[in-house]
């Protein structure tokens, strides 16, 4: 499936745009998130959170599922991670509307379809005391020199029980 043309914002690093056949414009940002691993100065500067946002819509009609979006998102991921193999991307599914499970499933499906043998993903689930679950994942290149330490730090971050934290 052909991906949508991408444009980078030359003045805002790590910001991508693409528009769709259904007249929607999306912005994808990779936001530096070193605060996640403050005790890991080696790789904290290479950790980013990914955000996808619909920023413009030229149509009044609801858009159907678009098969060109998943490969386009995958291409953005690849472009971003391939530019610097030390990078890691953290993704957390929005839980405000209760649809975090379907978002996590969709995201995982995209990842497994496009990962090839080059990318690794570690999933994490966090549940608060009210029973709300937060799905999160970290993705990096298989040749990331810090991959084991990044995975260990991520695992500590989302450690399940209070005993382990």
């Amino acid at each position, binding site marked *: 499936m052909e991906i*949508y*043309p991408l*444009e980078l*914002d030359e*003045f*805002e690093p790590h910001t991508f*745009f*693409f*528009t*769709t*056949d*259904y*007249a929607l*414009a999306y*912005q994808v*940002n990779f*936001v530096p998130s070193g605060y*996640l691993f403050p005790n890991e100065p080696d790789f904290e500067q290479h950790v980013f*959170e990914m*955000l996808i*946002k619909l*920023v*413009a819509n*030229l*149509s009044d*009609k609801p*858009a159907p599922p678009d098969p060109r979006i998943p490969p386009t998102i995958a291409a953005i991921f690849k472009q971003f991670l391939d530019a610097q193999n030390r990078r890691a991307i*953290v993704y*957390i599914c*929005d*839980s*405000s509307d209760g649809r975090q499970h379907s978002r996590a499933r969709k995201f995982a499906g995209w990842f497994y379809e496009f990962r090839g043998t080059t990318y690794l993903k570690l999933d994490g*689930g*966090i*549940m*608060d*005391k009210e*029973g709300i*679950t*937060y799905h*999160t994942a970290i993705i990096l290149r298989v040749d990331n020199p810090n991959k084991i330490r990044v995975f260990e730090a991520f695992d500590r*971050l*989302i*450690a*399940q*029980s*209070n005993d*382990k*934290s």
Partner: protein
Amino acid sequence: MILRDLYLPRRALTHPAHPISRFFVVEENVILKQIQKAMEPEFKPSSDRAIAWAKAATERKRKEEKRMVEDFKTNPRTQAIVKRLFQKNHFKDGYGNLSA
């Protein structure tokens, strides 16, 4: 294995007239419930630190997404990028109107 072993005698013995039928039905239900429980995904409350991070990260994500939209509305540079991209698009019938 357990289910199969249980199921075979049950088929033979669960006729309502058979005195032992009730025993097998009850036993099977108990075992089925145990299996069902064992196969459910396990969710237990996470550590306070993990919960605090998840909530902060979600809040931060919402704020950042809101900022992206607001910024786009007032940023001629990003609007120009999107306009260029839209001009390259061949919209599906009924979608998009660049003259609007």
